[in-house]
């Protein structure tokens, strides 16, 4: 199971990469594999304020509906429109083309997990 070391993680299985004050958010490979084939993604609209730890969207697989929790406080500046027609990209490239949304953040969140910490957490859940 891939857990890139350069990303930050939440215990709810989102990953985040912050560059120049913009956070790119997705769900982890562990989450995508646990859910099964992802068939629908509901994302926040651009311009929406998201709050760390609060739900801001949904990921639906064949069998389940799961909330997306924002890892950051900020304003959504871009959503991955390509997922509307190809939600399975979240399964095939969870850390790449399967990203969910980007948000402008005023300050870096302090409570993200490191790759190592996240990996330890998923070991417990397996």
């Amino acid at each position: 199971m891939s857990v890139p070391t350069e990303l930050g993680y939440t215990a709810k299985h989102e990953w985040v990469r912050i560059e120049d004050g913009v956070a790119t958010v997705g769900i982890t490979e562990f989450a995508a594999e646990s859910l099964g084939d992802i068939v629908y993604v509901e994302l926040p609209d651009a311009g929406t304020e998201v709050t760390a730890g609060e739900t801001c969207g949904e990921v639906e697989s064949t069998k389940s509906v799961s909330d997306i929790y924002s890892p950051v406080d900020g304003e959504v500046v871009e959503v991955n429109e390509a997922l509307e027609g190809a939600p399975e990209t979240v399964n095939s490239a969870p850390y790449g083309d399967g990203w969910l949304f980007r948000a402008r953040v005023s300050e870096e969140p302090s409570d993200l997990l490191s790759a190592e910490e996240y990996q330890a957490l998923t070991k417990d859940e397996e």
Partner: protein
Amino acid sequence: MSEPASAPRATALREIHEQSGATLVDFAGWLMPLRYSSETAEHKAVREAAGLFDLSHMGEIRLTGPQAAEALDHALVGHLSKVKVGRARYTMITAADGGVLDDLIVYRLGEEEYLVVANAANVTVVADALTERAKGFDVEVTDESAEYALIAVQGPRAVDILAPLTDADLDGIRYYAGYEHTVAGVPVLLARTGYTGEDGFEIFVRPSDRAPQVWKALMTAGAEHGLVPAGLSARDTLRMEAGMPLYGQELTADLTPFDAGLGRVVKFDKPGDFVGRAALEEAARTARERRLIGLVSRGRRPLRRGQDVLRDGAVVGTITSGAPSPTLGRPIAMAYVDGDLDTTAGTFTVDVRGRGEDVDVVELPFYKRQS
């Protein structure tokens, strides 16, 4: 080390599933493969090539004796004494009030021998009811579920995959027929039945520890035909596309077979009384209160069990099963609506967590194979 009493039971194929990377889940008290890789790919493989399923959680109850046929005519809604040796019937067992206790496939193995196949969650209820209802008949009822493994090979390539492994002339086995044969050298009950809407076979293996031999031989023979192992997730979307009911969703103890649109399985013209007859005659006379319809969404959000169906904004029914359909490329659902509802008029929507999704009402099934 002893496992807790609540731990799900493993089938004889558990090790093979784990080696194949299956996601295993507790289903009706059994540890069953949900999927091996992508359930959508497994679904498509069954439609286009073939899939291999472990269905060992299903229950097998044997009736043996001079009055086995009469006992089943009394215990079930079907006319089982009329079934020829080597043939099978889809039927149901109801309570005295007509409520469905389970839907069943019954194989007639001999003049005085039947095998009743029940859903995993209902095996005890069915075995107990059959034992009780068989009293006074010269027949022995035995729950043999623990002794059996059940493997299904389903899909258009099923015949090609199975043919080199069996002594059976597969062309001679019609749909809903089953005979004693060998597969990969193992004696089995080989039946042309399934729950996917495709051609295929169900292979009853006893004792269950011979099942790995059968599974491995099928996987090897199937490699060149595109056979893949398929889990319960694909099985559920396959049966939904085929418009087949699932006990606990389309069928419950609160519904008669007539409520489910399956009144045809109730055979009033058979000899003697049967459990539920009076209540079912009443249900057949009175207008059906509910009707099972198919819904195809115009949007992309999956439709799910429990969601309300609305016509012109007013609730007219509830979804019993819903999923994204890999074959149609759209979300589909089965729903019960009021029996006298005119589904040709008005605009239908489904309430998906507060949002109305536009849907079209269609006849079931959603998918029918080209024969």
